[in-house]
């Protein structure tokens, strides 16, 4: 994942994984990204331009991978 174009295509997969995957720590530990919904709203705007660039559309719901 080195070129800009590759990164644009891969960004959707990165967002799915960074925000929806990984080890989750619950309990008395707080999340820095307190309002994850806001994070998603921001990224959705970012991703819509990626979708256009991709010319393939069908990005599907960003929330798809959340537990």
């Amino acid at each position: 994942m080195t070129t800009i174009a590759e990164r644009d295509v891969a960004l959707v997969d990165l967002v799915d994984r960074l925000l929806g995957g990984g080890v989750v720590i619950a309990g008395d530990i707080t999340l820095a990204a307190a309002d994850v919904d806001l994070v998603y709203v921001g990224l959705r705007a970012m991703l819509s331009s990626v979708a256009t660039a991709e010319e393939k559309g069908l990005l599907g719901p960003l929330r798809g991978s959340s537990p």
Partner: protein
Amino acid sequence: MIELYAITSAPAPEADGLRAIENDGLAALCSVAAERQLSAEELWRREEVIESLMQDCDVLPVRYGTVVRDADEAARFLTSRRDELLQALERVRGAVELAVRVAGDERAVAGDGGGYMRVKTRLLEMHDTLSALARESKELAPGRGAYLVGREDVAAFVARVAALEEANEELSLLCTGPWPPYSFVGP
């Protein structure tokens, strides 16, 4: 406050800009938590750090935005979840995650019922074919699969994706990775 990036077996390899908190055979790689504007660059910055770590050892990536109060709290987390984390490390040993996203022809997906069913069947077949080459697989959302693939099998997997795309004119497949095993660290 410190931000957690990944969990590895102790001793952890040196990682650029990260500090390892080790306890009970496990290591949490972290940095001082900082307020950052969320952006594509910020996500890639973090991803690069974890990917470079992945070159040297098996890692369990931690969900983005996870912070703990201090090193003691990180160490306590390693102890309290020790068995589960060790099992997770065993599960992903020597493997990476590959993502396969289907970008279909909209007419086929949104068209008549027959076209929709045909595409759906095709997707299931592809998922089964790719799953056979993976240790584990998961459908994150319709048309968005995650596959846990042994490092030695990555080339064969990518070749199979290319062959599937060749054989299916209606659908195009985007394969990205190798990623740290984000989708295979939990239940």
